[in-house]
């Protein structure tokens, strides 16, 4: 009798409470708080840690390697960065230099330099942290454990779609929160980009002027435009003078950012700039009234075509197959 009383009074309520706790726990299981906190620390560490290193970059298409190279990286707080592609035979490779306020991207094989002015680092950091919280609402962020990269113990964090397909994986230095390895995945869960340090030095030697850049004589200089105002779709269509044609197909995990449309001028015409984002990745589609018939073409990650009275340009890092599906689903 005493036993049955105990069972009723204590065990059953305990079981119910445990059930409730489990249900509550599983609702929050999409976001590992520890993992999210680490990603926040990564954002905070950007531009705030002195180091130099050698980084390997490998690009894949449909799971097959298409390009690979090494970079020599220097970073100096606050916000200074120098990244040079290492070439054989001593010839100059592509170069990226930032002094924290102005960044330069130099392509020696094309004799072209692109200059971009940056917002203050604190502003960039604040916005990225805020967006990280929003990202946590839409994706799964998980902590996977530790691994050694370039001799350092790193924490491994993966960001996946709610369906479980990985989007990005970071290996984060356990002490400095510098990202020592990154993998990005395509919509089929295959690695499409892998970057990892093979050597890292947190007591680097710098040389004078290494974070400044002067375009060489003969180089074409382009200014990268500031980000234009982003407005809701209806307002953007009003300013552009035509309606947006949205693709019927989007790769898994991507959504149209309908509150974040821009109207930009280009050779006297207004162009609608539509953004599609998965949270970890995005692609852009530019739409304009076509003045002339354009031949369809694809160059690398860019695809252009005409349909109805419009011309479209798609710029993305999704696979070529996905780009074709997107293009084919645009029906004015």
């Amino acid at each position: 009798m005493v036993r049955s009383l105990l069972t009723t009074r204590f065990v059953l309520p305990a079981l119910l409470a445990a059930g409730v706790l489990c249900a509550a726990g599983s609702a929050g299981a999409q976001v590992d708080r520890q993992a999210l906190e680490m990603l926040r620390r990564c954002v905070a560490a950007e531009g705030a840690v002195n180091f130099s290193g050698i980084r390997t970059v490998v690009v894949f298409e449909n799971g097959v390697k298409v390009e690979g190279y090494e970079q020599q990286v220097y970073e100096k707080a606050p916000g200074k960065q120098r990244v040079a592609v290492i070439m054989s035979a001593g010839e100059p490779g592509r170069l990226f230099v930032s002094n924290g306020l102005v960044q330069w991207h130099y392509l020696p094989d094309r004799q072209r330099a692109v200059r971009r002015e940056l917002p203050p680092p604190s502003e960039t950091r604040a916005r990225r942290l805020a967006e990280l919280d929003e990202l946590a609402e839409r994706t799964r962020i998980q902590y996977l454990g530790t691994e050694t990269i370039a001799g350092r113990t790193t924490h491994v964090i993966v960001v996946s779609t709610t369906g479980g397909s990985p989007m990005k994986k970071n290996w984060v230095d356990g002490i400095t929160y510098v990202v020592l390895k990154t993998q990005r995945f395509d919509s089929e869960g295959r690695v499409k980009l892998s970057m990892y340090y093979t050597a890292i030095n947190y007591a680097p030697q710098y040389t004078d002027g290494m974070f400044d850049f002067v375009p060489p004589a003969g180089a074409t200089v382009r200014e990268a435009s500031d980000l234009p105002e982003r407005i809701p779709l209806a307002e953007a269509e009003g300013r552009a003078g035509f309606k947006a044609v949205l693709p019927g197909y989007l790769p898994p995990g991507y959504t149209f950012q309908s509150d974040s449309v821009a109207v930009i001028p280009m050779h006297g015409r207004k162009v609608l700039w539509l953004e599609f984002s998965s949270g970890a990745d995005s692609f852009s589609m530019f739409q304009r009234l076509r003045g002339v018939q354009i031949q369809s073409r694809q160059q690398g990650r860019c695809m252009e075509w005409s349909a109805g009275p419009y011309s479209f340009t798609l710029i993305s890092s999704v696979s070529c197959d996905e780009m074709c599906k997107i293009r084919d689903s645009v029906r004015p």
Partner: protein
Amino acid sequence: MTKGKELSQQEVARLVRAAKAGDRQAFGRLVEAYQDRIYGYLARMLGDPDEAEDVAQEVFVRAYRSLGKFRGASSFHTWLYRIASNLAIDVARKRKRQDNTAYSLDAPMEMGDEEYDREIPDESRAPDQISEQKQVQSIVRQAVMGLPDKLRDVMVLYELQGESYEDIADILEVPLGTVKSRLFNARGQLKKRLEAMVDTGELHVGS
């Protein structure tokens, strides 16, 4: 990993463009950059240095004549390897048809991707004045040559040429999983062949 005189992606692209336009000197630079790799691969696949040179020359001639078809979707070296691999398999098969005795053990019963062992014959060798090191190498080469073509291909590319799984998958135009399973089988078979040679006293292995 650096392999010999490595050309950067950009240099290769520039030389390929020039060669497509008919610049044979540009193509000559590509030959110089990749000749060791291709020759080495073929020597290990075919087991005969003279034949390897002939076939290696053929690889580059075919590459030159089909440069128009090279779109850059693969890297240049995996494309070259693909030509070499196809030629090597053709030559090996033709050789088997012509000479069953020497290679009977190499004719696998190919059923899709599963390849079945045959019994390793007793190929006793008479020791002669060659050095022990060369003797060991010769025996190991024989053991590698004794693998079925598809397994030998993956083993040579991975273990001896140092190519990655992904590049091998690209070269052979098979899925990554197939590369790994073929390598797994190749290792197992090679081990058995070498064990047999140790057991018969052909091979003496130090600790």
